[in-house]
């Protein structure tokens, strides 16, 4: 057992009693995030699981100010909060949005794009658990291909591919965006620190384990999150002004089914006659990985050119 002073979290910024499900990623995410951002933070939460987890009135799990706002409006609300703080000279206060994938990929996308394009000084953290979990596992545009949800039930499983949010975000030319996994905590924490210390609009997308939604055992949540990274289903990378950099390259090639088989939402993929779907997912994942590698390579080449030109950021 490690001595106390070697725990990653030295300064706990949440109270006990969060009402998340067992194995939920949100609580772990919030603990680590808040321990790095500290109390000089205003959190802005659209409708999401976390809005509930952090506490119904009059409770507040976070030891910082929290504004619960409308589903579509977190980036816009945060814009107003940021403006007020700036006008009052509180430029060192962090404004941090914590949103789910529904509030980010779907209903909140326009407001997100607006705030990102304006370069608002806001940190946006999206916990991507691949469906509207708070309302009971309905399909979002983050829901993976092949997954079963309550609005894509049974053989009506999702037959379209999820949106490439990070690609959309990269197109906004942000100073910093990154994907994170709760199975890679030191990488996650380093990215939070990097995001905290960057000015402008920053976005972190975290792979969110959701035992009830993914139909996994709570005890397997972090293991499945790790497998998602190892199988390249959820690659870890950073994007700085459209320059991609992979944070983790798995040593061995792990087929996607090694991760998907733990998740009840994909159970039908392993039934007879559905092998092709698994192959389609594998092909999609491999192609996305090759794209990320190519983008990273482009970044390295550009870095050399930019340095020569003297305008590398």
């Amino acid at each position: 057992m490690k001595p106390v002073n070697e725990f990653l979290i030295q300064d706990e910024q949440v109270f006990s009693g969060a009402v998340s499900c067992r194995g939920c990623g949100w609580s772990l995410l919030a603990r680590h995030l808040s321990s790095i951002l500290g109390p000089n933070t205003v959190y802005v939460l659209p409708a999401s699981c976390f809005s509930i987890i952090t506490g119904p009135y009059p409770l507040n799990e976070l030891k910082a100010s929290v504004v619960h706002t409308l589903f579509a409006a977190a980036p816009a609300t945060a814009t107003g909060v940021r403006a007020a703080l700036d006008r009052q000279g509180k430029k060192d206060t962090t404004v941090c949005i914590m949103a789910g994938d529904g509030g980010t990929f779907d209903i909140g996308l326009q407001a997100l794009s607006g705030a990102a394009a304006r370069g608002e000084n806001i940190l946006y953290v999206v916990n991507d658990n691949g469906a509207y979990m708070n309302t009971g596992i309905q399909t979002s545009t983050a829901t993976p291909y092949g997954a079963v949800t309550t609005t894509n039930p049974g053989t009506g499983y999702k037959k379209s591919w999820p949106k490439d949010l990070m690609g959309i975000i990269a197109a906004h030319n942000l100073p910093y965006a990154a994907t994170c996994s709760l199975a890679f905590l030191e990488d996650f924490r380093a990215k939070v620190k990097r995001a905290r210390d960057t000015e402008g609009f920053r976005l972190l997308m975290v792979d969110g384990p959701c035992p009830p939604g993914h139909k996994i055992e709570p005890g397997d949540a972090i293991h499945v999150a790790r497998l998602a990274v190892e199988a390249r289903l959820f690659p870890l990378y950073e994007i700085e002004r459209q320059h991609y950099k992979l944070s983790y390259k798995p040593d061995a090639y792990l087929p996607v089914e090694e991760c998907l088989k733990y998740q009840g939402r994909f159970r039908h993929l392993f039934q007879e006659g559905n092998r092709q779907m698994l192959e389609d997912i594998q092909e999609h994942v491999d192609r996305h990985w090759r794209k990320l590698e190519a983008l990273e390579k482009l970044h390295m080449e550009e870095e050399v050119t930019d340095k020569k030109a003297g305008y590398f950021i």
Partner: protein
Amino acid sequence: MTTETILKGTAPGKHRPAARYPRHRQLILKGNYAAAEAARLCRVGFVPAYPITPQTTIVERLAEMVAQGEMDARYVNMDSEHSAFAAALGASLGGERVFTATAGQGLFYAHEVLHAIAHFRLPVVIANVGRPSIPWNIWSDQSDSLAQRDTGWIQFYGESSQEVLDTVIQSYLLAEQLNIPVMVVLDAFYQSHTSENVWVPDIGLVDEFLPRRVPGPMSIDVANPKSFGGLVPPEHYNKMNYTYWRDAVQVAERAEQNAAGFARLFGRGYHNVEAVNIGPHTKLVLVTLSSITSTARGVIQKYPDVGLLKLRLFKPFPKASVQEALKELHKEAVLAPIERNFLGDREGAIFQEMQRALYGNPFRMYDFYAGAGGKDVSPETIEKIIYLARNHPKDVNWVDIA
């Protein structure tokens, strides 16, 4: 038109009377510029903006004033009215004085956020330039704001650009006293794009009337963390609504007190409602909002037994003020609301509210739909309404239908 032209003003010369209002300048302003001037005079600190006809020149003018340093505010080009109002919510929660403007579809789009701003008890003030819903129509109509009457916002309707400017100033005081947001409504084009003489007060005079906003317990304070807006259980939600109601029922009286204080400082008085030629001799009372009032004022001069009830405060509906204004009216008298709105019901919004305010009173009331979608309510239209109201009217009448 350049800013210079807009703001040059008309210097008092020998052909003009000496300044009617001390510590004012008389300018020729379109209604939209009067609304923007009011926001500047109130030292608004945050303006989230999104364009929509016929409001656009309000946010354009504000952008200009901020860019030129005439106004110390943060101005943000938002991505929609929904976002503009959500940003207003965030900044107001952060303790800033916030202003924005919208119209028609923009107000409809912001509907969800209107409720949120009201129930967060935030003293946001906006100008709405009334226009109706799609099929596209950009002309004068009050269906947009009247459809938002149940969002919890206070609503004032300005008859003139002067009244719009003065009402915005009074609205910040009222909003910040009661923590209830205010919508000041002006008519599309008839007001928004029509130039009038407007007396613009010196900012120092406005400062005497309107103190700086003091952040309250419902403001973000980083040193004293709080959570706002999280899931509220039924008992608490019910009580929050009770405390809101307790403040909402004070609006009419506070608005009258504030208007009296305004009159003492600025020399111009307003009331929640205005009664013109209403007494025991009056046989017919036209009930109006906004610029239709001015037309009716002129027309009734030819009709000694026709009066006019102008509603300036519409929400919460000033029941007591209406009853007071009509107290000398003979029981045989007839009331005729003129509706520049259509909300899908048999009677228009003004009729509905008037019936509620006058329940148990003997007056007969006939409703007159006129002027939806910007159709001109001319003096002739008003005369037709007077004629119809006196000669076997239907319960509900549509005037000037071709």
